[in-house]
């Protein structure tokens, strides 16, 4: 099914008698998702408003991410949260997954750039929330609720986003060969000082990378000062640009593509201070992002992490879907209650 309008989409949902699986490009499905009849948003396409001077872009949910990125680039702007991308990814899919890359450590996740949504809920009602302005506390913030809800509350038809000017300059500081604990310590040192670091990660190669962005003079000043601070951790190499972060942004996707049969990929979110101990127990290649708060790990399919308090983990590739730790009963009841209210017939229950 591929509705061409929001009204058609609403009619399909109202008439549905069996589970539906809404998809944009279908590039972010996790194990167990997408079991229902595919409901594609590809027909809901196009940027409906773009005001560079107001840093605002509104696009229909099925608009290819690449089309959004190209429109922004033409005006010297970008999505602050730099989502990972695959052939066919749509802006609606990015939002439904709250897909957020390295710059999250400074400028927030997709949900933090999302300022408005339109969606059709599980009963077929068309609902708008938020708008196209970046400061808005009118009514409940269902915008945040929809971000990352993976299609379980409704099908997004339009999203409004705050955009960001592309930085005139950027630099990457690289430290090679740091063990995970020293790497996290270096990233923490960088993120707790006045350098305005906009990316901090550790690639599977073991390289620790830190990104600075801004006006050219400012980047040069901060790069020199930060390199001096990090010298205690080892030799620091400073390069122009941020190519390493294009790799880091895609790392979960690349790990899944490289994982052979019998292998899984885990996505773990923790406090940076918990990261080194977690990495030590991981039985395969790892990568760190967000200063150590995000860990990507390739593991044997049956392997399950032993999480410290507060940390969360999801098996995102290989083996059956699994999310840890199990939700506390009161929290699970709230989740189920909200899903039940937006999708009383359970039409979207298998979405995500």
């Amino acid at each position, binding site marked *: 099914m591929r509705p061409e309008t929001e009204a058609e989409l609403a009619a399909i949902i109202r008439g549905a008698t069996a589970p539906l699986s809404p998809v944009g490009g279908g590039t972010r499905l996790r194990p167990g998702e997408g079991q229902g009849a595919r409901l594609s948003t590809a027909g809901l396409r196009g940027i409906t408003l773009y005001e560079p001077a107001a840093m605002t872009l509104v696009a229909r949910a099925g608009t290819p991410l690449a089309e959004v990125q190209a429109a922004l680039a033409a005006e010297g702007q970008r999505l602050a949260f730099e989502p990972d991308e695959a052939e066919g990814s749509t802006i609606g899919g990015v939002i439904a997954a709250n897909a957020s890359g390295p710059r999250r450590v400074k400028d927030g996740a997709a949900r933090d750039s999302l300022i408005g949504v339109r969606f059709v809920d599980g009963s077929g009602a068309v609902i708008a929330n938020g708008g196209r302005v970046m*400061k808005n506390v009118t009514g409940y*913030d269902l915008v945040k609720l929809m971000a990352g809800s993976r299609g379980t509350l409704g099908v997004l038809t339009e999203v409004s986003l705050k955009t960001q000017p592309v930085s005139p300059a950027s630099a990457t500081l690289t430290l090679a060969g740091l063990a995970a604990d020293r790497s996290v310590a270096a990233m923490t040192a960088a993120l707790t000082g*006045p350098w305005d670091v906009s990316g901090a990660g550790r690639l599977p190669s073991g390289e620790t990378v830190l990104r600075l962005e801004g006006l050219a003079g400012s980047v040069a000043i901060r790069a020199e000062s930060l390199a001096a601070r990090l010298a205690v951790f080892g030799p620091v190499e400073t390069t122009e640009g941020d190519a390493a972060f294009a790799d880091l942004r895609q790392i979960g996707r690349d790990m899944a593509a490289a994982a052979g049969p019998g292998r899984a990929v885990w996505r773990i979110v923790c406090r940076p201070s918990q990261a080194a101990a977690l990495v030590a127990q991981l039985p395969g290649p790892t990568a760190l992002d967000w200063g150590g708060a995000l860990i990507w790990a390739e593991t044997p399919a049956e392997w399950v992490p032993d999480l410290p308090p507060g940390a969360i983990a999801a098996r995102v590739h290989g083996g059956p879907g699994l999310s840890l730790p199990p939700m506390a009963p009161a929290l699970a009841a709230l989740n189920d209650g909200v899903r039940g209210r937006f999708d009383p017939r359970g039409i979207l229950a298998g979405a995500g």
Partner: protein
Amino acid sequence: MQMPTPDAAILARRAAIVARLRAVIGAGDVIDDPVEARAYECDALSAYRCPPLAVALPTTTAEVAAVLRVCHEERVPVVPRGAGTSLAGGSMPTADAVVLGLARMNAVLEVDYGDRLIRVQAGRTNLSVSGAVDEAGFFYAPDPSSQLACAIGGNIGMNSGGAHCLKYGVTTNNLLGVTVVLMDGAVVELGGPMGEAPGLDLLGVVCGAEGQLGVVTEAVLRILPKPAGARPVLIGFDSSETAGACVAAIIRAGILPVAIEFMDRPCITATENFAAPGYPDCEALLIVEVEGTPPEIDEQLALIRALAQGFSPVEFRESRSEEESRRIWLGRKSAFGAMGQMGDYMCLDGTIPVSALPQVLGRIAEMSEEAGLLVANVFHAGDGNMHPLILFDANRPGDLERVEALGADILRLCVEVGGCLTGEHGVGVEKRDLMGAQFSDADMEAQMRVKDVFDPHWLLNAAKVFPLHVSASRREARRNAA
């Protein structure tokens, strides 16, 4: 301002309810003396007041849960209150409601500089969160102008902003987790590392739900290392429209100041008479603040100067010292006090797309003239969050009604041009009846469904946010069932 008729059955059971509250949190933490309770009859929207049934001042999450369990069993409405600084009536009670005040819960529970977070009890004031981490070189970014007094719990309820949110975001962007007590006394943890949790982003919807979903008792907040320095410039213009156009140009150019503040002539004149900041004689001015080391600041200010020249500024005043910076901010920071000196005022809070600034400022001037009421504009121009102040005399019969009518017209204008009714103050009771200008019935129904899940009997702060006729059937179901 219409509020639901108090539930006579609850008023009649007042003594028994107070006794039950005293049994769970200690006699001294429950106020039922009418004179003492009067301190809780309103918040900063002081035109509307109503003494509550009683006031409970618990000191722990367990005590909050105990109070809520009693109220839940008794089917007594509850109005959560941080510091009572809401400009929208967010913590205004009803006669049949227990005010649950968080003022005694102000402890710092954990600070972790490496992980860049602080965990506090929700009654702690905004400024004292930054105060707790200041010596280590950190701060908590959202800075509502009431930050000396306002509580973090209230900030979360209203998703408060501030002057610096252009760069740092508002409360929701700096909130990693909360402990929230539901109306039935259940204690739930929302959020997690990086604010992320499995399942739905319920933290995101609790923030800004105006205390209607639960009572936040603890919060984990993102703290940031302080910038190396900051410096403002003041730019004067010969028209509000030109100042508005300059804002758009600065944003378009890719410079991201931490703040762009706007004041028009009525506001400049008032602050000049009040605090004598020495502002230029002009129709409108911008205060633009940038951060960094001195050479980084110079680099940004050079760009801003070059851009501003294109708009023929009356004056471009760069601060050369701490004292000069202080004087540039002095007028802006005393603007509300200055307007207060001139008489009564109503402060609006609509947001508009930045591109609509010149058009909306022109239209507000016309509406002000038509209504015969002086409107002064002072606001966060960088993000389009306007604060038109309508001056009036509260003692003159009919003035308040005329002001409210003009205020409503200005807010409808904000919605018409693609904006919203409230950017950072919240809906409360003040803008409750305008919600239909921005939302369809289906939009509001979707929001109310969330409350149905968190608070099925509609006991928490229930007569707010949604127009009374829209929420009536839900609120009355509780009463009819009782």
